[in-house]
């Protein structure tokens, strides 16, 4: 029996920093009642304007003559569950790609157009439309062994001190979660609702933009949107939040 216990201790991963599953809270649960009401009402949620724009883009064929999203995939409803499982391994790239990167690859390879710029309104609109189809579904990052290296790099980034303030993600979002930072509650950092409308931005933005905010906040030079480091970090964050319900496109203060 003692030998069995010892074996179990050796086999079970020791992840002392992780938030216990029962204590995980999304940004929706920790924000104020007014912002929650704004998100619950699809009419008042400004991110739904991006979705509307995405619907128009989805069915529009590019001027260059390539197919529209609609002509290959069918209606946007066929994208149910897709956003919940990104970033995923892309065989031809031999690397992990995020949802925005996947859309850009489609634009380049299938539609034969120049891919929409990262953080552009058009890319966020398509991403918001695809993410909406996974609303209410649990985040389900793939257990793909080819992603293990990227996941390990993401976890390392999450626990590595950055910038002039010399802080790692883990210091705020795990160890000091729920406490106050200059009048705001430190969220746990679960990416359940991206792309989302952030009132501070007065715009819809991606997870990479939000990560950029955090990096600038600790006075580090942020990685550019779509950089491999951003995707590694996103992959780790999605694993950390695995099973949590998606609420994209969300509203956050």
């Amino acid at each position, binding site marked *: 029996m003692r030998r069995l216990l010892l074996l179990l201790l050796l086999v079970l991963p020791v992840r002392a920093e992780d938030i216990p599953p029962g204590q995980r809270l999304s940004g929706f649960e920790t924000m104020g009642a007014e912002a929650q009401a704004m998100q619950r009402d699809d*009419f*008042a949620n*400004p991110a*739904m*304007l*991006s979705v*509307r*724009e995405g619907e*128009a883009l989805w069915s529009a064929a590019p001027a260059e003559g390539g197919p529209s999203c609609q002509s290959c995939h069918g209606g946007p409803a066929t994208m149910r569950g897709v956003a919940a499982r990104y970033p995923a391994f892309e065989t031809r790239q031999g690397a992990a790609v995020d949802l925005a990167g996947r859309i850009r690859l489609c634009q380049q390879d299938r539609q034969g157009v120049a891919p929409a710029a990262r953080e552009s309104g058009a890319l966020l609109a398509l991403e918001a439309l695809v993410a909406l189809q996974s609303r209410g579904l649990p985040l389900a990052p793939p257990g793909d062994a080819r992603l293990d290296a990227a996941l390990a790099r993401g976890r390392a980034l999450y626990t590595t001190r950055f910038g002039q303030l010399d802080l790692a993600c883990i210091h705020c979002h795990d160890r000091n979660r729920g406490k106050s930072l200059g009048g705001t509650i430190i969220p746990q950092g679960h990416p359940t609702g991206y792309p989302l*409308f952030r*009132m501070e931005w*007065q*715009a819809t933005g991606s997870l990479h933009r939000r990560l950029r905010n955090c990096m600038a906040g600790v006075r580090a030079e942020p990685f550019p949107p779509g950089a491999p480091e951003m995707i590694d970090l996103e992959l780790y964050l999605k694993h950390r939040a695995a099973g949590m319900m998606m609420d994209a496109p969300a509203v956050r203060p």
Partner: protein
Amino acid sequence: MATASVLIQRGHHRKGDIVTLKAIIAHPMETGYRRTEQGAVIARNIIRRFTCHYDGVEVFACDLFPAIAANPLIAFTTVATRTGPVTFTWTGDNGFHHAETATLTVMD
């Protein structure tokens, strides 16, 4: 082309009923007070006026100012008279103009 949504309170409206109307539009509402990282002023780009016509009559209008947030949502009420078109119009800087039309149905 801007993206906008309009909503007329659902239900069976009778003549004399008070009906809630809502309108939201995608617009940056750039204040004109911000600067780029290089220090150049970002030109003001706001919606200046919103009007609503119901059955040809102006039932609501308002001026908008730089302090109003991006993607303004405007909600107001009107009294149902008869079935007719409701036209929502936004006009603003740089020749911005957008209109949406919906129908308010009144039961007899």
